[in-house]
């Protein structure tokens, strides 16, 4: 809200109708009774198989669908199952027990792919190795459910002639009647508490969004921002504090200073507009996905406002009937470690095509051992899909075969780039907001 000195009408901030849809990611009724991850894979396979089975008649109607155990050599058929990618470079906890421990620690490559990787398809009855040039292992990861067409060879492998991914889920129509521009601002990787954090740079962002910066034209633009989403890694608690030892009184300040500093900035923001804050891998939240909302007690100042919303990671919400889904980056970063693509946006596209936000969970990405659901399944294609804590700002408008339209946004780390992202709700156009304190 900004006053103009010449006594003209006060600029009012635009409003948008918000619906928080994080309920499926909140861990409330679930109880851990020692269960393992087989249940989440069973739920995933069951759900995805029924979706694929409705698509198979349109793909290859004349072929029978078999189970893995029901394969006959030489008989052409379709099988549906979960992919497992065997990677020899993938670190395995069993290595600690099988080999002798060497004094030199293993060098961790950032990417565990090798040319020896091969794919295996598994359903309840069994598993079979997939052969043939159609499926390039570098584009796939463990945990996705696909249908493959081919036949069993004499060696017992399944030679793949063609494969089917579920593709983009059906999308609810976006309302097209809005005539005014309304913006959603995204920022990620603030990392308050590290040396990379520049308070002046973030204060510039805060002042711009709250409308305390610039002339009337700039304030007019700021008044159109209806919401700010902070996409993870807002603070950085030094990992030394997570070792489980008690924190000495002299170190208490190092633990609480970043949180308090962030709260001061957040209070300025929530006083001006609604803010959603998501946890990231460096925030004081649980490690495994879905990360639970940051606790209100961390934000003594900001949590007093009803515009402050602490969200889960992944985060699903609706603004003026536009569907938003986003994560703080762990799902895409894990795909980057185990597969190859030309850019992060392509990984994001793949997760939409596979209809699963985090297919590598629980294999290589920490995940809660759900028994009766898999909350990462994408049942309805969102209109905006955002991922935080990436290297650079990238965006693409993805078009689906059933008139789906998705805006994909890769949000860069603010502490490194000084870049925040603005999305226009009216037309899903996206642009970057760059803040620099270098003269």
């Amino acid at each position, binding site marked *: 809200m900004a006053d103009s000195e010449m006594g003209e009408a006060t600029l009012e901030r635009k409003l948008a109708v918000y619906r928080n849809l994080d309920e499926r990611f909140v861990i409330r009724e679930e109880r851990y*009774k*020692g*269960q*393992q991850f*087989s*249940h989440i894979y*069973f*739920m995933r396979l*069951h759900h995805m198989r029924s979706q694929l089975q409705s698509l198979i008649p349109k793909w290859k109607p004349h072929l029978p669908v078999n189970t893995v155990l029901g394969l006959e050599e030489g008989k052409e058929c379709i099988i549906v199952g979960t992919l497992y990618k065997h990677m020899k470079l993938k670190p395995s906890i069993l290595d600690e027990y099988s080999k002798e421990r060497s004094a030199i620690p293993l060098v961790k490559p950032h990417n565990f792919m090798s040319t020896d990787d091969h794919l295996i398809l598994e359903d*309840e*009855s069994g598993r079979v190795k997939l052969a043939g040039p159609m499926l390039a292992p570098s584009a796939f990861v463990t945990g996705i459910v696909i249908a493959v067409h081919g036949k069993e060879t004499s060696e017992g492998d399944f030679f793949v002639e063609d494969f089917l991914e579920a593709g983009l889920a059906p999308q609810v129509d976006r309302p097209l009647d809005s005539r005014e521009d309304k913006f959603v601002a995204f920022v990620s990787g603030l990392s308050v508490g590290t040396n990379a954090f520049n308070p002046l740079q973030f204060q510039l962002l805060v002042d711009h969004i709250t409308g305390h910066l610039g002339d009337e034209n700039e304030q007019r633009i700021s008044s159109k921002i209806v919401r700010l989403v902070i996409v993870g890694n807002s603070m950085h608690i030094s990992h030394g504090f997570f070792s489980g030892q008690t924190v000495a009184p002299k170190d208490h300040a190092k633990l609480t200073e970043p949180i308090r500093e962030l709260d001061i900035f957040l209070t300025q923001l929530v006083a001006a507009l609604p803010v959603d804050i998501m946890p990231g891998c460096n925030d004081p939240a649980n490690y495994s996905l879905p990360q639970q909302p940051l606790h209100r007690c961390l934000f003594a100042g900001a949590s007093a406002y009803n515009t402050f919303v602490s969200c889960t990671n992944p985060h699903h919400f609706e603004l003026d009937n536009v569907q938003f889904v986003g994560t703080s980056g762990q799902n895409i970063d894990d795909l980057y470690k185990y597969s190859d693509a030309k850019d992060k946006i392509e990984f994001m596209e793949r997760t939409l095509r596979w209809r699963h936000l985090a297919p590598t969970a629980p294999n290589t990405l920490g995940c809660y*051992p759900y*028994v*009766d659901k898999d909350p990462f399944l994408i049942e309805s294609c969102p209109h905006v899909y955002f991922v935080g804590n990436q290297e650079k700002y990238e965006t693409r408008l993805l078009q689906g075969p059933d008139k789906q339209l998705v805006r994909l946004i890769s949000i860069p780390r603010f502490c490194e780039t000084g870049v925040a992202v603005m999305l226009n709700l009216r037309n899903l156009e996206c642009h970057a907001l760059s803040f620099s304190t270098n003269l």
Partner: protein
Amino acid sequence: MSSSTITSFFRQEKKRTNDGGGVTIAKLCSKIGLDLAPFLVSSTDQLRSTKELSKEAEERLREFDIDMRYGPSMGLTRIERWDRASALGLCPPADVECLLLATSTISHCLWQGRV
């Protein structure tokens, strides 16, 4: 003075047994034509509700544990697995539900605690 004893003021009521549960299970069983008698063995306990499962019943439940269609059996109780299968529309056998509801002990699958 003759009949106005304290028992006429405070009428004694018979303690309610688990007739509510029993009636439902009986209804279920009669609906599917299952006679529970061969499956239930009276324990030495007087209360009707604690009936132990006979060997045939245990065999039937183990078949349910092994059945691949309803997903993994370890890590959840048999009735939870039955409910999950039912919620997914897999139509798990109704006689298994009867058997599971007829006993008061919550049973896990065969391998629970052993693997």
